[in-house]
């Protein structure tokens, strides 16, 4: 059955083709729904069957991967490798099933399907209903290519495909001013990272003569010295490629310094924020780093960089999230922060923890986003938390599921976020006390801003207009049912990774173990049991402290006063956080303006004077001037010609004699 794996990405792509091209504007919303949901549901079904049959197969038990090559996609011919030998480079359209892609496949198809269902209710009154579902299906197809590809190029096609869909869906409300701008910003920032990604791919192709995961990673595992030698700029080959790929990941997964697009990406419809900008697409960078763990384990320095960047992003975004008032912005910065956590895990070598957190995060963050979408839906498009409040009476289902999601992300046991975050913190402790401490503080901040979000939205008095109060309603069941399913996921997915000392088997760690290459040093630190208890205690205390702090400030009926009091006590800090550290302004002032000035200078001097002036107009002028001079000799008088002839003859004689 696994042979049908290619259907998984193809079905949503067909759905996108049908809704976007073939039946565009020719069917009712109901028809568009049938196509979009049908293709996604079928894809989910095929995926589940494929996973099940892979897990039941002999290959899985033997620790092997399943690969299905559909056709030779780019038979590129002979390539001279960097060691001088020649190899036939052929890139296949191939799919791969191993424990890692099984986890990703399940998360993407399952969460993706739920968000499709949710969107039916959320987008019901939107003019672009069919267009929306065409884009969403296209996204599913690209994302599934990304996680299923058996080589870097198929991954890259999916990588770019999801970037395109992200652009299309952020700018979905193209009649307004801001969403198209945010879409362009996302696309351009991603391109910066993609450039480095491509450089990394070229380096890999030149070294290995292949882009297949199996070929490259088994070659590295077989002989790590292949990639540890000096390569470029004093870096080893592994470091160089790992750095290039990581720069790509910082773009896609919104890490410092390329995280600026993600908060603006909230301009798209809320289910899109849930699916693309929280649960799946932005985690592609984490997936890619874990997939390439053989390289990262050997990339001295770069893994540390990954951990530091992840850790810095985590606390940086968490502090910004404390001061934002737009409900989706808070969740966006929370996403950036949690992605930082995943990179922290990947950087310290806790790859399975990174994927574990990716999976749990997909559930509770999708839940939180969809919950916020339900709130926004009920308020007729209002996103400012200062105009919410007291909604728990009006939106009971949304309130309950949202709290489950918030508690899960805050890291309160026994919900999902607790286990995955605890694994990451334990891994960070084994690598560096400082990383652990920053991670711990971030955990506290996470709990604090999530509790703040809940208090500001669902508690206290309603602060919106009378008209909004009148229209307050719980969302339709197509929206609340996915919320409950995701809430169930946010509760139980953590159980997959109960650590051994709590009586669990760390199932996810063992499940993913075959994916982690056995090269170089063993990064897995097995701490003492008492230490694990202490670390876990710290994490819980941090989370509880965060929640209590939020409760003191925003809890009960305090409304906005508590927050205003804090802002009044530390005006500078408050301005810094509300201004998001002015990173956007900094980029605008120094990067964009500089580049624009450079481009403008190039246009004026190189293009204007050199290309246009010297090359184009200069050549024309030279030709014209020569012609003008020479025309005086063509008098039309035969005797003059005879004279030239004679002179020429004499010149020839003079030259010859």
């Amino acid at each position, binding site marked *: 059955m696994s042979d049908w794996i290619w259907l998984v990405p193809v079905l949503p792509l067909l759905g996108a083709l049908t809704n976007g091209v073939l039946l565009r504007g020719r069917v009712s919303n109901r028809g568009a729904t049938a196509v979009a949901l049908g293709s996604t549901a079928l894809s989910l079904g095929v995926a589940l069957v494929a996973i099940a049959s892979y897990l039941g197969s002999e290959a899985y038990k033997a620790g092997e991967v399943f690969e299905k090559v559909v056709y030779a996609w780019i038979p590129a011919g002979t390539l001279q490798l960097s060691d001088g030998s020649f190899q036939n480079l052929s890139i296949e359209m191939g799919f791969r099933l191993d424990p890692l892609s099984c986890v990703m496949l399940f998360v993407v198809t399952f969460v993706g399907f739920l968000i499709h269902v949710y969107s039916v209710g959320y987008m019901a009154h939107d003019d672009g209903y069919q267009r929306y579902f065409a884009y969403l299906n296209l996204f599913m197809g690209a994302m599934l290519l990304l996680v299923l590809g058996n080589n870097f190029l198929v991954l890259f096609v999916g990588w770019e495909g999801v970037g395109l869909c992200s652009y299309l869906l952020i700018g979905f409300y193209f009649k307004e001013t801001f969403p198209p701008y945010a879409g362009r910003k996302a696309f351009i920032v991603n391109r910066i990272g993609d450039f480095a990604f491509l450089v990394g791919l070229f380096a890999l192709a030149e070294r290995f003569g292949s882009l297949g995961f199996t070929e490259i990673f088994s070659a590295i595992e077989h002989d790590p010295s292949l990639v540890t030698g000096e390569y470029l700029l004093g870096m080893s080959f592994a470091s160089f490629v790992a750095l290039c790929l990581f720069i790509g990941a910082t773009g896609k997964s919104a890490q410092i310094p390329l995280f600026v697009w993600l908060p603006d990406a909230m301009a798209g419809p809320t289910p899109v924020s849930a699916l693309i900008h929280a649960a799946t697409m932005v985690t592609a960078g984490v997936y890619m780093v874990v997939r390439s763990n053989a390289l990262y384990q050997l990339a001295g320095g770069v893994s540390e960089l990954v951990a530091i960047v992840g850790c810095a992003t985590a606390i940086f975004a968490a502090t910004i999230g404390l001061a934002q008032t737009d409900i989706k912005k808070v969740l966006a910065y929370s996403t950036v922060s949690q992605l930082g956590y995943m990179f922290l895990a990947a950087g310290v070598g806790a790859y399975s923890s990174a994927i574990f957190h990716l999976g749990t995060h997909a559930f509770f963050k999708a839940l939180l986003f969809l919950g916020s979408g339900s709130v926004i839906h009920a308020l007729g498009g209002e996103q400012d938390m200062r105009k919410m409040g007291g909604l728990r009476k009006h939106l009971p289902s949304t309130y309950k599921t949202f709290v489950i999601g918030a508690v899960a992300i805050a890291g309160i046991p026994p919900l999902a976020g607790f286990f995955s975050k605890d694994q990451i913190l334990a891994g960070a402790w084994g690598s560096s006390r400082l990383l652990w401490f920053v991670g711990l503080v971030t955990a506290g901040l996470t709990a604090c801003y999530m509790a703040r979000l809940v208090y500001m939205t669902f508690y206290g008095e309603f602060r919106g207009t009378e008209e909004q109060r009148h229209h307050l309603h719980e969302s339709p069941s197509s929206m609340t049912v996915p919320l409950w399913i995701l809430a169930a996921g946010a509760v139980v997915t953590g159980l997959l990774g109960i650590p051994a000392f709590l009586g669990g088997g760390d199932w996810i760690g063992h499940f993913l173990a075959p994916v982690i290459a056995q090269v170089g040093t063993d990064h897995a630190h097995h701490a003492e049991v008492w230490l694990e208890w202490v670390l876990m205690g710290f994490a819980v205390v941090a989370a509880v402290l965060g929640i209590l702090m939020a409760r003191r400030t925003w809890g009960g009926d305090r409304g906005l006063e508590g927050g205003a009091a804090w802002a009044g006590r530390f005006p500078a800090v408050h301005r810094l956080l509300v201004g998001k550290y002015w990173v956007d302004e900094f980029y605008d002032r120094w990067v964009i303006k500089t580049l624009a000035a450079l481009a403008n200078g190039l246009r004026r001097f190189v293009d204007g004077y050199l290309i246009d002036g010297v090359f184009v107009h200069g050549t024309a002028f030279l030709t014209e001037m020569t012609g003008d001079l020479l025309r005086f000799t063509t*008098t*039309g008088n035969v005797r003059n010609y*005879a*004279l030239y002839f*004679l002179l020429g003859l004499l010149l020839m004689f003079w030259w010859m004699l």
Partner: protein
Amino acid sequence: MLEITTTHYLALSFVLFTIGLIGIVSRRNMITVLMSIELVLNAVNLNFIAFSYQLGDLTGQIFSIFVITVAAGEAAVGLGILVAVFRLRGSTEIDRAQEMSG
């Protein structure tokens, strides 16, 4: 008595050739120009024959017969053009034909 050597022939040929060239370049009447061309050609013929005689090789003389043949053709075509030009503008002044000036 003065013996006539190849050098004398060459000198005569040179004089004829130069007169012909000057005629081509300086005269305005097309008929004169054509006649000057004949002079140049015949100066060449003279050269051919002089060397043929000196070297005892008949090739040069045969070649000069070819030249005379071609010259006859050239004169016929040239005179034909001349007649056409005369019909067109009632003059054989060569300077009048300047339509091709750049």
